[in-house]
């Protein structure tokens, strides 16, 4: 049993994780549901009363209870992984990424899952962190609803179903991600 836990506690390689994600998608399809995480933001809007302001939010949120249960599980899964299955928080990223990020002001790239310069509770109320977290989150919510899907709906489910428009959306994901990483991020780090 200890051997099994030690085995699980190592970082999992990509070729284990990818097929397992496809298995999760298949499990949802088998129980009559579609793999789509960003839909939960829309459900929260409905529950908070946005259905009174726009027809876009008019639907029965009870049809999405399964998805809210799924994200509740995902939060618990993250907690279990962090506290019981990950003795080392080091993320073994490429030396080139470490050098690039040190050059823009991140002291120890890969020493933890998240850079403390942005995400630690002491730094989080700074203007810079608010831009990364609140505005970044805003873009995630706005963009996924505009494109009607995120990584789970477009990149995984859509491409698996050979959907042309999902490929277009994924190209968009990279236009935005590359522009932010290479053109804008160095300036945000100077704030």
């Amino acid at each position, binding site marked *: 049993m200890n051997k099994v836990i030690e085995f699980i506690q190592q970082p999992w390689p990509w070729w284990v994780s990818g097929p397992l994600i496809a298995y999760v998608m298949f499990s949802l399809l088998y*129980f009559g549901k579609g793999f789509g995480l960003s839909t939960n933001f829309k459900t929260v809007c409905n529950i908070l009363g946005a259905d009174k302001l726009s027809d876009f939010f008019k639907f029965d949120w009870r049809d999405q209870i399964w998805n809210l249960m799924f994200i509740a599980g995902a939060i618990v899964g993250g907690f279990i992984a962090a506290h019981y299955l990950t003795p080392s928080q080091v993320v073994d990223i490429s030396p080139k990424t470490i050098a690039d990020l040190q050059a823009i002001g991140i002291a120890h790239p890969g020493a933890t899952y998240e850079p403390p310069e942005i995400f630690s509770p002491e730094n989080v109320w700074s203007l810079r962190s608010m831009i990364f977290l609140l505005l970044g989150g805003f873009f995630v919510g706005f963009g996924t609803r505009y494109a009607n899907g*995120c990584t789970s709906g477009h990149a995984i489910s859509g491409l698996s179903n050979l959907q042309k428009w999902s490929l277009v959306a994924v190209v968009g994901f990279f236009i935005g991600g590359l522009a932010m990483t290479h053109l804008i991020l160095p300036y945000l780090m100077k704030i």
Partner: protein
Amino acid sequence: MKYIRFFIMGILFGVILSKSEVISWFRIQEMFRFQSIHMYGVIGTAVITGILVIQFIKRTKMKDAQGQFIQVVEQEPGWPRNILGGTIFGLGWAMTGACPGPLFILVGHQGWVFLIPLVGAVLGTFTYGMLRSKLPH
């Protein structure tokens, strides 16, 4: 309780994405700098396996747990919505280092700090809903 299976699948999903470091801001930076196969390997093997799974479902006319034919949703057509929406999401993905699934997982993994981008995402979704009729799709 019929929802418990989705809760358990969610736990599995959270553990998979945590253990393979997909939720790490550094892994997303590495991806957008093309400096490792890691994220491309995760998404690539998920899609290749997914294609096989969906082809199998379609060719065998597989039924779901309730005995209905499994329907795989077709995505919405349109250049502006997919390119512009995708680009806006991509900006946010590189900033938060997380797409929607990982944003939830990170609340359990890292703590309350990740409630802030979730609030932002709900505000963004709400704003889209209010502006929708004025945007090109």
